């Protein structure tokens, strides 16, 4: 059972960035107005931020990192580890973390690597960076997480386009012996790997002359083999059963009193799914923030984006306990209890 804790590492700050370019779901022509209204009611997604062609996840994360470093008054040469969590890296190789090390002007002594996880990636990323810092004594670290999923979608696929938005984030960690322990429950069920996937372009199915041919899957769903497949029904079934399980596992393992948790921040998948998860966990509505309406599902950025846009005013100059829970592509999930003590939350950046 992958439940464990890491002592002596503190979260010092969080920053997020989104593209300025806004798309409204009411403007979509792949759905009828009636379908759109029902879609919005069920999923809660009204607007999404969509990156123009020349704006990548690494660019969004780079801006967020620079802003956060400035707001924290950190020196760049103090940062000894950079982890980039994304499924929309700049290139197949090399890792974007290497490019970001140079772009951000970090020391060449800095450890830098990518983690290609999605919806569970933020929680996994925290566990990786905190675990490595604790084990090796690295003093300062940056977790960059986000996706520009819009680049992976077929514009003629009504099952994906209205859901996904683009965003990047940066989270700063520092060794601090007084920090409350970070607690985790992580898991994987690869039997569901086909639920959310892109078929072609990797090593198993190299991109070939057929990869870019559009196929009609069902009315309103046309895509090619290099674009995202989302099996909404299976994702939904997975989310409503697995998310409450992993949160309960963490709560039982570490004997957490739910009343002492200030906020429960879930991956923003869709409102109907998230409300059901909150209901099964019997969480009071005021403790469960949402950023779905304005930003949609931004993959590994949903949790920091929800914190920055919905909780910023709550978190300054206080000490608060949060439970964070991400679940999705893999299938993979992670829950963490994180204490935010006098944490710096930067203003949302729009690029």
């Amino acid at each position, binding site marked *: 059972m992958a439940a464990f804790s890491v002592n002596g590492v503190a979260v010092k700050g969080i920053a997020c960035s989104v593209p300025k370019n806004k798309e409204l779901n009411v403007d979509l022509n792949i759905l009828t107005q009636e379908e759109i209204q*029902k879609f919005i009611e*069920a999923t809660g997604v009204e607007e999404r931020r969509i990156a123009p062609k020349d704006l990548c996840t690494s660019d969004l994360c780079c801006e967020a990192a620079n802003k956060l470093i400035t707001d924290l008054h950190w020196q760049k040469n103090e940062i000894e580890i950079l982890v980039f969590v994304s499924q929309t890296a700049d290139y197949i190789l090399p890792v974007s973390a290497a490019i970001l090390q140079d772009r951000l002007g970090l020391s060449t002594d800095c450890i830098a690597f990518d983690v290609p996880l999605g919806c569970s990636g933020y929680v996994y990323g925290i566990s990786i960076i905190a675990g490595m810092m604790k084990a090796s004594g690295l003093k300062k670290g940056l977790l960059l997480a986000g996706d520009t999923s819009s680049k992976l979608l077929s514009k003629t696929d009504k099952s994906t386009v209205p859901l996904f938005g683009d965003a990047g984030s940066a989270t700063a960690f520092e060794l601090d012996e007084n920090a409350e322990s970070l607690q985790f429950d992580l898991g994987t069920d690869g039997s569901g790997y086909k639920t959310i996937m892109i078929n072609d372009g990797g090593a198993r199915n190299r991109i070939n002359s057929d990869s870019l041919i559009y196929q009609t899957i069902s009315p309103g769903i046309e895509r090619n083999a290099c674009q995202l497949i989302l099996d*909404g*029904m*299976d994702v*939904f*079934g997975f989310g*409503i059963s697995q998310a409450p399980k992993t949160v309960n596992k963490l709560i039982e393992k570490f004997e957490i009193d739910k009343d002492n948790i200030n906020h429960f921040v879930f991956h923003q998948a869709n409102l*109907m799914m998230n409300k*059901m998860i909150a209901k099964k966990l019997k969480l009071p509505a005021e403790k469960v923030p949402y950023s779905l309406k304005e930003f949609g599902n931004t993959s590994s950025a949903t949790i920091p984006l929800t914190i920055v846009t919905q909780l910023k005013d709550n978190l300054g100059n206080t000490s608060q306990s949060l439970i964070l829970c991400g679940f999705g592509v893999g299938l993979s999930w992670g829950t963490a209890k994180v204490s935010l003590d006098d944490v710096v939350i930067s203003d949302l950046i729009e690029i």
Partner: protein
Amino acid sequence: MEINAFLKNFADILDDTDAALITQETVFRDLDEWNSLTALSLIAMADEEYDVKLTGDDIKSSNSLNDIFEIIKNKG
């Protein structure tokens, strides 16, 4: 598990469909109101009321509401 209670639960997830149209033989896919979102409501109902995880394949392979009822019964 009882069929009439299941049919009532199914009727409850619909907004604009006359509950009288909901019978064991109803081909749910042919209902005007049926779409990918109602499918999610059905998965949610099976989870909430019967603690059963319906998959996309379960729904795709079913025709009548009785088919769904039998799947839930067998999984429960």
